[in-house]
């Protein structure tokens, strides 16, 4: 025995006292642990689903109109520029031979007939090859790319 006993010091066992009184946590409780796991799962699911949902909302009103000029002529740059600045037009892309023009547009704002007006203004006779939902076309392009790769 030390011979001299210690005077009572309330600070000495403060940690233990706080654990007993529940002031200090004894580790992660089941509730907190399950909440954390639930949050991780929710975050994971939202990470997968939210970008798709946002993309869908952003593109659901978009259509692609694909045009070709007579005799497979190349599309003049000024016409492309003119279409590009029209209200409701998102993008205008020429394909690799400059012979096909793909116009992505918001069908609530603009219609292919309005593109035809512009083409006529420049004395161009264009044929509308296809009008398809933008997302559907993107999916088709992706599938075609995968097929080509395999």
């Amino acid at each position, binding site marked *: *025995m030390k011979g001299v*006993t210690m*005077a009572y010091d309330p600070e000495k066992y403060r940690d233990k*006292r706080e654990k*007993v009184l529940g002031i200090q946590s004894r580790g992660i409780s089941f509730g907190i642990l399950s909440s954390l796991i639930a949050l991780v799962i929710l975050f994971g699911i939202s990470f997968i689903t939210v970008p798709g949902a946002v993309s869908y909302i952003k593109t659901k009103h978009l259509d692609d109109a694909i045009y070709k000029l007579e005799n497979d002529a190349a599309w003049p740059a000024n016409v492309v520029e003119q279409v590009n600045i029209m209200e409701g037009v998102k993008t205008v892309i020429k394909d690799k031979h400059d012979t096909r023009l793909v116009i992505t547009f918001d069908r609530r704002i603009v219609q292919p007939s309005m593109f035809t007006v512009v083409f006529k203004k420049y004395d161009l006779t264009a044929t509308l090859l296809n009008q398809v939902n933008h997302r559907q076309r993107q999916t088709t392009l992706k599938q075609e790319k995968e097929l080509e790769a395999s």
Partner: protein
Amino acid sequence: MTKINHLIQVEDLGKDYQSGDTTVNAIQNMDFSIDDEEFVTIMGQSGSGKSTLLSILGGLNHPSSGKIFVDSLDLYSLSTEQRADFRSEYIGFIFHSFQLISYLTVLENVKLPMAVTGQKKKKKNSMALDVIDRMGLTSKKDRLPDQLSGGEQERVAIARAIVNKPPIILADEPTGNLDTHTAKDIMGLLKSLNQDGHTIIMVTHNPEMEAFSGRTINVKDGNLA
């Protein structure tokens, strides 16, 4: 409000049992205190109430009256769950019959009090092996209790009592089942634990063991003598 000046403060403690139509006053109006790092022996004849007192100090036995403060905690105003946490944090029990689990090995017995501490398995193992080593039982850690001598079983019981590093060790007749030589050996061990900072409260009726402690509280017929 009570002013707390000691690690353990017992105030006007009483414990009654009902035995048939008779009320037995096992403990009556006890007032005493125990300081941090003291080695106190509670002595008294069989039936004097000393083991009852020990169980009340350990938060195992609700008193009929009075209060016990341990580290400022009013022990019996705590909820049952808080009192269980109190025992886990503050108290190491050593029983005279060792109370080892016969089908568990030495290591498993020592790890038992850590089952609810929320520590990692590796940490528990290392803490248990440390105290087993301190008790000189490393080579016997995989043995079952009945493959050990009485002194060795007592050492396992001590290892189990100190594995959680409790500030207070309550020992109920720790040498009651041991021969004189082994008993002194065990008392030396308890004394060294006291030197390491554990407060030890030991119940015994053996005056020879009293010499190892610093102070004696004598109990007679439920009163301080």
